[in-house]
């Protein structure tokens, strides 16, 4: 029996986001103490949780020492081995949103686009030096610059506080991660209009070879992504209940679904309310998109409904788990014959 090794970020925003997500999905991680780098998920035996630095997770999964993991999409693209074994398992967990952008000193009024920057790089070159860019994610940035014709450039390695580089004078422009752009603005930097290298959020990646050739691991991975998908979908829905008077269950159901814009209601249930006195009251239950909630409530009122209530739901499952279906497709190239 091989356990699925699930790598999670050990600190930072992605750690918080991941913990919250897993809690919501009923997959809370049990960690003996915060210094321990291994943990488990009591509701999912057979999964070993490994807390890792975010920068290591992709590399570990590529190398096969972890099977699946949560990382930022930007980090994944920066450190993955192209044509390696790693595949995207879930392409957006809904937290850790950020983008990697190219920013220039704000007073460079004449520089608004990547084409301008290519021009400036040439001007610098003519003066006998390269445009210096302080950046994280050198691989992504270098390729992006080259693709945009910014070829005469030298990369300056900085591990933190990139924003200060142009003022301090050890770089001319920067490529940095930003969520809102506020820090960049406050440091006198401006993002180029077409200077977004990558828009990122947290994703789940997996070692395709490990999952394709180990049915138990695949089953564990499936349970994780199914729960995440169902939990994410559930956030868009609420369950509405209310009591409506009518002649029969069928008649009440007809009235409820009468309005065409509400015809996409899910899971309509009508059941008789046994009050002892009158038997023509029925409880109606229906799953609605949050955006449809006001319409549904007023429709219930129009039908004389009482006791109308709406609740959050924890999971909404579809006939199929799309993420899993996509995964199975993506795993085909990794299937080793004879296993």
């Amino acid at each position, binding site marked *: 029996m091989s356990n699925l090794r699930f790598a999670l970020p050990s600190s930072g925003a992605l750690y918080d986001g991941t913990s919250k997500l897993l809690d919501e999905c009923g997959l809370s991680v049990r960690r003996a103490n915060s210094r321990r780098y291994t943990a488990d998920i009591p509701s999912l035996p057979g999964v070993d949780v490994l807390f890792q630095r975010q920068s290591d997770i992709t590399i570990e999964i590529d190398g096969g020492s972890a099977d699946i993991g949560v990382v930022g999409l930007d980090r994944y693209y920066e450190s993955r081995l*192209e*044509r390696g074994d790693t595949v995207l398992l879930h392409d957006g967990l809904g937290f850790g949103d950020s983008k990697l952008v190219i920013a220039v*000193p*704000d*007073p*460079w*009024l*004449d520089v*608004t*686009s990547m*084409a*301008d920057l*290519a*021009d*400036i790089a*040439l*001007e*610098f070159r003519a003066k006998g030096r390269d445009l210096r860019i302080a950046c994280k994610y050198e691989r992504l940035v*270098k*390729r992006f*610059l*080259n*693709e*945009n*014709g*910014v*070829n*005469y450039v030298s990369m300056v390695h900085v591990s933190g506080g990139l924003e200060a580089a*142009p*003022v301090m*004078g050890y770089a*001319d*422009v920067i490529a940095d991660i930003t969520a809102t752009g506020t820090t960049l603005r406050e440091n*006198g930097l401006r993002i180029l*209009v*077409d200077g977004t290298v990558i828009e990122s959020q947290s994703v789940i990646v997996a070692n395709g070879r490990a999952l394709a050739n180990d049915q138990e691991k695949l089953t564990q991975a499936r349970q994780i992504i199914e729960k995440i998908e169902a939990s994410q979908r559930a956030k868009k829905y609420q369950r509405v209940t209310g009591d409506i008077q009518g002649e029969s269950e069928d008649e009440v159901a007809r009235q409820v679904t009468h309005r065409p814009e509400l015809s996409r209601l899910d899971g309509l249930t009508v059941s008789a309310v046994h009050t002892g006195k009158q038997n023509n009251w029925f409880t109606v239950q229906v799953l609605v998109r949050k955006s449809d909630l006001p319409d549904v409530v007023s429709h219930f009122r129009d039908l004389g409904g009482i006791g109308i209530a709406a609740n959050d739901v924890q999971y909404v499952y579809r006939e199929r788990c799309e993420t899993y279906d996509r995964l199975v497709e993506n795993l085909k190239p990794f299937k080793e014959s004879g296993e």
Partner: protein
Amino acid sequence: MGSTALAKRDAVITALRGVFGLRGYDRSETPILEQTELYIRKSGGALSSRLYGFSEPSGLEVSLRPEFTSAILRQVANTSPSKGQIRIMYDGPVFRYASPEDEDGDKTRQFTQLGAEMIGATAPSADGEIIAMALEGLETLGITGGRVVVGHVGVLVDALSEFNLSERAKLFLINNIGKLKNGEFAAVSLKATRLGFITESVVDDAQAAADRERIASTIEQVLSEGMGVQFGKNTGARTPAEIVARLSRKMSQIDNPEDFKRALKMLTKLSQVNGPAVSALEQGEAVLSSAGVSAELISNLGEVLESAKIEGVSSDRLSIDFGMARGIAYYTGMLFDIYLQDDQSETLGGGGRYDGLTRALGYDRDVPSLGFAYNLDSVIAAVGPSHDNSQKTTMVSCVSEGSVAAAVAKAKQLRGSGKRSAIDFQNSNESSEG
């Protein structure tokens, strides 16, 4: 690569060298490892993001060659300009990285190019010679279904020049012609809007408006109070004077959005014109004239095709695609891709005219130059097995000859009469093996 495949490749290379040689092309070799500088163009990013580059122990940035043309043009440009044309051919491995998402992501990182360059010729008949030679080479190899699709960057640039656009706008449009051809008009428009080529109040965001206002007020202030006031100290390695100078240069080249939109529309239509040479040429002319544009270079395209016919290329093997562009600023005239029959999925090679390349390489003059290269691996795949003329080897056994000396003597005798022969030091019977 196994011996059979190698023998086939050698035979193909020898045959093609023969074809080019008969037309007066001399062989040339260039280093596999070059200073990265050579391949980093002054504009265009198509190749620079695919280089296999690294720092050598001395600290110098070097790269494996991704193509031959730059090195050959440098060779020629460094020698004194000569009269007449210089004809050069080359072959060897080139290296380009392709990520899995790239169009050619399934290609190998190393492949073999065999090509030719003609330097110093401006006449359209030179273009005709190059196209004809590309097909002639294939025919020599027994590939009769070769076909050439011709485009013309010059026509596009020429047509765009009548819209009063900045170089930047023209380059943007030409770089995006592939997308326009594929019907991605909306995506290109959106990008043009974001870059400020098209301004419409509907899509104009607050940021852009604020930027414009700030630029205007800054200029005003600089004019009235001098430099330095607005800029603060954070101008980095550039002085306020440099910024204002470039800004005013840029503002003076601001494109009229209406002109840009007209150009975009015209180019979109033109990009979708393709097909048999005669009719496509007519359609192309019609698109230009309906946009009120006279692109004189379209006659050059006609002459190029005519020259290819004079060289013996039948017209059913020539077609036009106005939507072709390589997105590289130094192409100036015709360009072409070689296909097998109607299969548009993979080219056997391609070429074009790049009179601007020497300047892009840093020389102060344009040198008329054109050429093409086969992707030799695709060409070899298209060749039938007939070119495998590797000879069988006769094995001479020491045992049956009685002694090593006798076997050596016999083997020598066989070789003397042109037969491959080798000595078998173990087997007792003389035998013939492949």
